[in-house]
C-alpha cells in the first residue's frame, strides 16, 4: 500500500513537471468547466428529485451550464491571447509501473487528470456549452408538465459534463471516459419515458450499437498505445505525447499499422456519430424528448466522432487508405441518409436522417484531409440542426405531440416565429449562400474535389456529395412545405388524440390502401405495425428496428394517452389544456429558436473562403492544430497546401456557384412537387416505383438486415451457449452431486455396519466378561481371604523360586 502511494506521489510530481513542455502553467480552473455541470447533476439527483419546485431546478441546471459556458469563453479568450493550448491537470489518475520498475518504463503509463484546451477544443466547448445552455432554457418550457422534471435536467447536466470531458480530454483514455459518459446519457435520455417499451428498447439499441463502435475504438487505442510504446519506447496515451513520438520516430508506426488503427478508431466514430454501418440507432433515438434529440443527436454527441478524427489528424494524415475509407463512408452515408430522409413522414425522423447525412458530409470533409472544413461544417451544423430540432419540437408541442407531417399543414399562420426560424435553418442546411450551411458544405465539396490525399481522384466523392446536397435541399423543403404550408390537415382530424385509424374519408384511397397494406406488411410510412415482440427477450434488437418506436411513437403516444387517460403518458400528451388549436410555443422556447436561427445565419461568415479578405478565420484559427494531409503521390509530406490554392481561384468560384445552383434546384423541385402539385408527383412516383418507394420508406430495411444477420447469429449463439451450459455444465455438476451422494451412502453403510458393529461387539464382550467375573464376588469374606492367601502363596513361591533358583539348580543338577 505504502509503496504504491509513494509511487503515485512521485508520478504526480513527475507528471506535473513533464506535463506539456509549453510553459503554460497548470490551470486547474479548467476542470471547473466539466465539473460544474456534474455538480449540477449531483445536486439534482440527490436533492432536486425530492423536494425542490420546478423553477429552482431549472434555474440551477441552466445556471450551472451558463457558468460553464462563461468559463469556456474565458478559456477561448485565454487561448486566443496565448496563441497556444492551455491545460489543467489534477495530478496522476492512473499510474502503472513499468515492468522494468521505472515509472515510464516498459508498459508503464501515466495518465493524468489533464484537460487541454487548444484551438479545436475551444470551438467544441463553445458549441457544447452555449447550445446546451439554450437547449436547457428551451426544455424548461418544453418539459414544463413533465413529472420527472429534476431527473431530466440532471441527465442533461450529466451529458454536458461528460461531453465537455470528452472534448477537453488530453489523453485518449480520458476522452474515452467522456465517450462512454455521453453514450450513457444518450441511453438515459432516449429511454426517458421508459413506461413505453419502445422507448426503453430504443435506448438500449442506441447504447448497444454505440458499445459495438466503442469496442473497435478501444482496440484501436490499445493498438496505438502498444505500437508506439514498443517502437519508440514512449509509453503514453496523451495526444501530445503520441504526436511527439510519431514526429520523432516517423518510421515507428508503419502505414499498415496506422491504417489498421485509423480504421478501428473510425469504426468507433461511426458507432458514436451514426455513420453507415452503425447509424440505425439514431432514427430510433428520436423516441427521446425533442430537446434531447436537438442537443445530443444533432449538435454534440454525434459530432464526437468527427472531433476524435480531427484530434487524431496527425495519425490519419499518415494513412491515405484510412483517409479514403473515412471519406468514402462519409459520402455514401450522406447520400444514403439523404434518400431515406426524402421518404420519411415523421418530422423528427426526417431531421434524424438529415443529421446522419450532414455527419456524412463532415466525415467526407475530414476524410479528405480538410479537417478545418469538416470541423467548420460541424460548427455550423450544430446551429441550424439544433434550430430545426427545436423548431420541430415547438411544432410538436404546439400540435399536441403530433409528429406526422402528413397531419400538419398551414402552421405558418399559427406558429409564425417557429415557421421563420425553421425556414431560416432550412435555408442554412440546404446550403443557400449567405447562410452558414453554404460556406461549410461548399468548403467540404471543394476540398473533396481538389484533394489528392485519397487513393482515387477526389471528384468521384465530390459527385456523391453534390447528390447528397441535392437530396438535403429537397427533403428539407418538403418538410417545410408539408408542415407550414399547404392545407391544414390537422383541422379535419376529429381529435388530435383520436386514433390514427379513423381518418377523414377525403383521404385519397391509396392512403387507405397503403394503410391496409401497411397493416399487412407494416411497411407504410407509419411503419409496419408489427405487434409487440412476443418473446420477452428485450434484447432482440431486430424486433425493435421493425416497429420503429419513433416512427410509430407519436401515434402510439397518441393512442396510449387516449386510452390510459391524460396524465398517464410520458406527460407531453397532456398538451396545453385544450387539445384543439395548434398554438405558438411559449417565449422560453422561442428565444432559443431565434438565437439558433441567428447563429445559423451569421456563423457562416467565419468560414469565408481564404482568398476572401481576412477570410477563412475558422481555418486560420484551427491551423496550428491540424497538419496538412500527406500527398499520396510524392510520398513525402507536402508542404502546406496553401500555395497550390491561390492559382485555382477561379475554379473555386465556379464550384461555389455550382453548389448554390444545386441547392436552389433541390428547393425548386420540392416546391414544385409539394406545393404547386400538392404532393401528387410524389404519390405518382410512389405508385410507379412502388418497391423503390417502399424500400426507401423502410430505410432500405437495414434494421431487418441487421436482425437477420448479426442479431440472429448472436441469438443462435446464445441458444447454443444456453444448451451447452445446460447439458454439459449442469450435467457435470449433477454428475458430481450424484457420485458424491453415492460415496456418502457407501461411507454411511460402512460406518453403520463396520464401525458400530465393532463398538457394540466390544461393549458386549466386556459385559459378558463382567457377568463371568461377577461370580467371583461371592460376598463371603472367607472366599476373599482364600483368594488373597492363594495369591500370596504364589507370590511367595515366585519369590522363593527367584531367590533360591541358583542354589536349587545346583543342588538338583549339581555343579559348582
Amino acid at each position, binding site marked *: 500500500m505504502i509503496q504504491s502511494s509513494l509511487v503515485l506521489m512521485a508520478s504526480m510530481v513527475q507528471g506535473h513537471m513533464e506535463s506539456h513542455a509549453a510553459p503554460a502553467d497548470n490551470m486547474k480552473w479548467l476542470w471547473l468547466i466539466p465539473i460544474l455541470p456534474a455538480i449540477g447533476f449531483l445536486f439534482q439527483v440527490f436533492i432536486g428529485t425530492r423536494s425542490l419546485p420546478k423553477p429552482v431546478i431549472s434555474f440551477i441546471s441552466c445556471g450551472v451550464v451558463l457558468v460553464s459556458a462563461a468559463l469556456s469563453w474565458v478559456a477561448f479568450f485565454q487561448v486566443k491571447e496565448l496563441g497556444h493550448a492551455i491545460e489543467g491537470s489534477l495530478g496522476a489518475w492512473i499510474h502503472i509501473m513499468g515492468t522494468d520498475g521505472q515509472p515510464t518504463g516498459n508498459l508503464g503509463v501515466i495518465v493524468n487528470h489533464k484537460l487541454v484546451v487548444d484551438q479545436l477544443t475551444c470551438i467544441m466547448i463553445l458549441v457544447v456549452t452555449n447550445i446546451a445552455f439554450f437547449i436547457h432554457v428551451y426544455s424548461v418550457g418544453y418539459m414544463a408538465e413533465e413529472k420527472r422534471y429534476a431527473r431530466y435536467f440532471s441527465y442533461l447536466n450529466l451529458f454536458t459534463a461528460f461531453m465537455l470531458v470528452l472534448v477537453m480530454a488530453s489523453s485518449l483514455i480520458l476522452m474515452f471516459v467522456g465517450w462512454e459518459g455521453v453514450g450513457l446519457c444518450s441511453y438515459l435520455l432516449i429511454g426517458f419515458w421508459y413506461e413505453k417499451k419502445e422507448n426503453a428498447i430504443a435506448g438500449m439499441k442506441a447504447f448497444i450499437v454505440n458499445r459495438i463502435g466503442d469496442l473497435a475504438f478501444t482496440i484501436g487505442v490499445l493498438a496505438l498505445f502498444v505500437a508506439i510504446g514498443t517502437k519508440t519506447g514512449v509509453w503514453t496515451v496523451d495526444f501530445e505525447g503520441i504526436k511527439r513520438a510519431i514526429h520523432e520516430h516517423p518510421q515507428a508506426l508503419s502505414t499498415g499499422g496506422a491504417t489498421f488503427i485509423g480504421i478501428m478508431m473510425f469504426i468507433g466514430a461511426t458507432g458514436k456519430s451514426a455513420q453507415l454501418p452503425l447509424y440505425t440507432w439514431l432514427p430510433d433515438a428520436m423516441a427521446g424528448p425533442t430537446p434531447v434529440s436537438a442537443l445530443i443527436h444533432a449538435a454534440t454527441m454525434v459530432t464526437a466522432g468527427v472531433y476524435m478524427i480531427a484530434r487524431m489528424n496527425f495519425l490519419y494524415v499518415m494513412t491515405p487508405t484510412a483517409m479514403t475509407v473515412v471519406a468514402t463512408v462519409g459520402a455514401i452515408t450522406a447520400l444514403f441518409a439523404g434518400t431515406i430522409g426524402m421518404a420519411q413522414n415523421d418530422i423528427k425522423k426526417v431531421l434524424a436522417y438529415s443529421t446522419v447525412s450532414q455527419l456524412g458530409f463532415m466525415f467526407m470533409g475530414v476524410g479528405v484531409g480538410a479537417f478545418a472544413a469538416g470541423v467548420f461544417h460541424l460548427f455550423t451544423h450544430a446551429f441550424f440542426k439544433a434550430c430545426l430540432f427545436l423548431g420541430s419540437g415547438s411544432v410538436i408541442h404546439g400540435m399536441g405531440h403530433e409528429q406526422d407531417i402528413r397531419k400538419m399543414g398551414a402552421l405558418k399562420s399559427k406558429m409564425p416565429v417557429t415557421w421563420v426560424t425553421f425556414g431560416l435553418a432550412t435555408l442554412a442546411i440546404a446550403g443557400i449562400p449567405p447562410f452558414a450551411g453554404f460556406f461549410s458544405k461548399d468548403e467540404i465539396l471543394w476540398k473533396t474535389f481538389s484533394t489528392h490525399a485519397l487513393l482515387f481522384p477526389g471528384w468521384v466523392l465530390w459527385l456523391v456529395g453534390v447528390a447528397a446536397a441535392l437530396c438535403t435541399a429537397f427533403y428539407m423543403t418538403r418538410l417545410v412545405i408539408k408542415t407550414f404550408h399547404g392545407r391544414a390537415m390537422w383541422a379535419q382530424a376529429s381529435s388530435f388524440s383520436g386514433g390514427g385509424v379513423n381518418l377523414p374519408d377525403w383521404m385519397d384511397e391509396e392512403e387507405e390502401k397503403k394503410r391496409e397494406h401497411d397493416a399487412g406488411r407494416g411497411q407504410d410510412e407509419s411503419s409496419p405495425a408489427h405487434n409487440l415482440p412476443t418473446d420477452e427477450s428485450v434484447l432482440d434488437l431486430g424486433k425493435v428496428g421493425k416497429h420503429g418506436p419513433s416512427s410509430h411513437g407519436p401515434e402510439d403516444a397518441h393512442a396510449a394517452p387516449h386510452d390510459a387517460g391524460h396524465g398517464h403518458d410520458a406527460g407531453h400528451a397532456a398538451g396545453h389544456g385544450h387539445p384543439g388549436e395548434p398554438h405558438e410555443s411559449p417565449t422560453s422556447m422561442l428565444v432559443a429558436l431565434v438565437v439558433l436561427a441567428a447563429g445559423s445565419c451569421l456563423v457562416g461568415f467565419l468560414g469565408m473562403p481564404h482568398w476572401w479578405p481576412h477570410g477563412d478565420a475558422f481555418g486560420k484559427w484551427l491551423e496550428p492544430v491540424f497538419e496538412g494531409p500527406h500527398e499520396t503521390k510524392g510520398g513525402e509530406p507536402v508542404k502546406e497546401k496553401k500555395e497550390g490554392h491561390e492559382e485555382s481561384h477561379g475554379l473555386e468560384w465556379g464550384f461555389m456557384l455550382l453548389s448554390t445552383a444545386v441547392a436552389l434546384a433541390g428547393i425548386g423541385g420540392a416546391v414544385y412537387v409539394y406545393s404547386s402539385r400538392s404532393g401528387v408527383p410524389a404519390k405518382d412516383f410512389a405508385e410507379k416505383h412502388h418497391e423503390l418507394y417502399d424500400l426507401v420508406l423502410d430505410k432500405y430495411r437495414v434494421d431487418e438486415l441487421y436482425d437477420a444477420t448479426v442479431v440472429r447469429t448472436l441469438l443462435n449463439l446464445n441458444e447454443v451457449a444456453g444448451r451447452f451450459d445446460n447439458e454439459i455444465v449442469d450435467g457435470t455438476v449433477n454428475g458430481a452431486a450424484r457420485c458424491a451422494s453415492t460415496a456418502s451412502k457407501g461411507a454411511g453403510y460402512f460406518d453403520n455396519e463396520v464401525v458400530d458393529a465393532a463398538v457394540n461387539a466390544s461393549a458386549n464382550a466386556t459385559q459378558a466378561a463382567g457377568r463371568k467375573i461377577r461370580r467371583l464376588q461371592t460376598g463371603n469374606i472367607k472366599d476373599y481371604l*482364600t483368594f488373597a492367601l492363594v495369591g500370596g502363596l504364589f507370590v511367595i513361591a515366585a519369590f522363593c523360586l527367584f531367590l533360591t533358583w541358583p542354589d536349587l539348580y545346583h*543342588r538338583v543338577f549339581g555343579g559348582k
Partner: protein
Amino acid sequence: MTSSEMVVNLLFYVFAVAAVAGALGVAASRNIVRSAFALLAVLFSAAALYALMKADFIAAAQVLIYVGGILVLIIFAVMLTHRITDVNVSNESTPGPAAFCAVLCLLFALVVIILPLPQPGPNKWDAGRAPETMREGPYAFVQYQADGKTGLANGGSTFENEVVVGVTIPEDRRAGLLRIVVRAVENPGKVKESLETKKAPDATLSPEKVRLAQEEARKTVAEPKSLEFAATPEKTETTHVRLKGLREAAYDWKVKLVGAEGESPWIGPKGDPNFVVHKGVTEPIALALADPYLLAFEAVSMLLLAALVGAAFLARKEVKE
C-alpha cells in the same frame, strides 16, 4: 555351653511350644471362648520371647496392649455377641481341606526359605550377622554382640552389658607376643543424654550456654571410667576378648600388644563411639520415635483417635425414642 545358654534354650523351647499350642488352640478349638483364652497363651509366650530377645519394653507393651486391651475386647465381643443363654458356644467352622493343605504348603514354602540346609557355611542370613571388619594399619578389628556370633555394627547399640571383641594380628607381629590388653573407655560425648539436652545444641541457646550445659553434664558423670581386660593371644589369627560389666554408656575400645621386647601403642578402630550399651530397649525406641519416626508416631496417634471415635460411634446402641 554355659548355664545361661541352657536356660535361654530351655526358655525358648518352653515359650515356643506354648505359643504353638496356643495358636493351634485358637485354630482348632471348638469353643470360641477357649480359643480366645488360647490366644492369651500365645500373646503371653510372644511377650516372653520378646523378653528373651532383650526387647523388654516391647514385651511390656505387648502384654499391656494385647493382653490388657485387645484380648479383653475380644472376650467382651465374644460375650456380647452370644446370647447369654447358649453357654456352650459352638464355634462351627468350615474345615475346608483345601485351606488346610494350602496353609501347609505355605508353611513348607516359608520354612524352605528360612532354614539353611544342612551343610554349614555362610548362608544368606549370615550376611546380616557377619561382623564389620575395621582396618587400622596392619591390624583388623571386629566386635560382636554378647552371643559372640552376631556382629555389632561400628557405632551400633547393644542391649546387654557384654561385648566380644576380636583383633587379627598379622603373622610377623604375633611372634613374641605375650599379652593383649583391651581397654574400653567411656566416651563422654555420647554419655546417656537426658532428654533435655539430647537435641543438637539448640540454635536459640547461645553457644556459650550450650557448652556450659555439656560441661556440667560431663561433670556430673563420674570420671569416664575405663575397664581393662587382658587376654592371651590365641593360636588363630584373631584373638577374641569378652568385655564384661559395661555400664550403660558409649564406649571406645583400644588394644595394646604386650610383647617380650615392649609394648605397642594403643591402637583401635576408628568411629566416634565404637558401640553404645543400653540397659533396655526403651530408650533407643524412645529416641527413635522422637526423631526419625516422629511423623509416623504422630500419624499413628491420629489414627488411634479416629479409630476410637469410629468404634465408639459404630458400637453405640441406638437410643430408641
